[in-house]
């Protein structure tokens, strides 16, 4: 069984005492604590402005399965950003240096995860740990 572990550490001094929250999780297939996610996709893309692109296509095979997605905006200009949408509904905005880790819900096959860049061409690094993908048959 493959083991994928994701941990977060949140630290802040904006309260009168230090705030420190940390947790981790093993990324499991849906509905089990015994079988880890065993498939992944990853990429690094330059996203030009002006167009919304599909970063990850939702498929019927992924509906109600576990999909853990990491996206990081590697742009160094803090005014550059991308808007992340699911099925054309905005869910997040990543400025240069920001990251997200989301348990993506593929409620149906229209729930594509999309990205659009603003201000300039943004560099995006992403990973998706998932289950249940079967490659499509070659058409040519």
């Amino acid at each position, binding site marked *: 069984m493959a*083991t994928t572990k994701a941990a977060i550490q949140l630290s802040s001094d904006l309260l009168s005492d230090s705030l420190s929250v940390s947790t981790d999780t093993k990324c499991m297939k*849906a509905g089990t604590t015994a079988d880890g996610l065993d498939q992944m996709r990853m990429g690094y893309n330059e996203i030009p402005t002006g167009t919304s692109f599909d970063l990850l296509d939702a498929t019927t095979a992924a509906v109600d399965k576990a999909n853990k997605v990491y996206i990081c905006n590697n742009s160094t200009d803090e005014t550059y950003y991308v808007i992340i949408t699911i099925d054309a509904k905005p869910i997040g905005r990543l400025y240069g240096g920001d990251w997200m880790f989301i348990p993506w819900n593929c409620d149906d096959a229209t729930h594509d995860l999309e990205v659009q860049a603003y201000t300039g061409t943004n560099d995006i690094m992403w990973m998706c740990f998932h289950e249940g993908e079967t490659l499509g048959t070659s058409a040519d």
Partner: protein
Amino acid sequence: MATTTATLTLISDILTDTLSLSTTATLTKTTTSTGIEDTAGLSRKKITSTAKGTASGQVTLYTADDFAAIPYLYIKNIETTAGYRIYVYDDSTSGDPLQFQLDAGDWGFIPMHGDKTYKAYATNDPTTVEFMVLGQDQ
């Protein structure tokens, strides 16, 4: 100026060699390098609704436009029984589309767009959720 950081560590043996990634984001006000100053605080609540929509018992995680863009949402399903799933949906959009699903033990960190209200329901009553919003109040 307050300093708030979020660090992600990802380790996996799916590949033939170990994948290990660590990244840190400093949470700042939009388009500046000035740190965020506000938080709604760390909350722990029981979700008692097993459906979205008009039924009671959902937990509101974030109310649209409560914070200036961008509010950061940390959320964790602290249940330990597999299948005790939390669904997060967009309560501002027609049809209340589902956006995230957290099985037992799962967590997420989402720099939100900020203009949508997010609510949660669960497959089991009750299911406990822990969450926090960080950002810039307005």
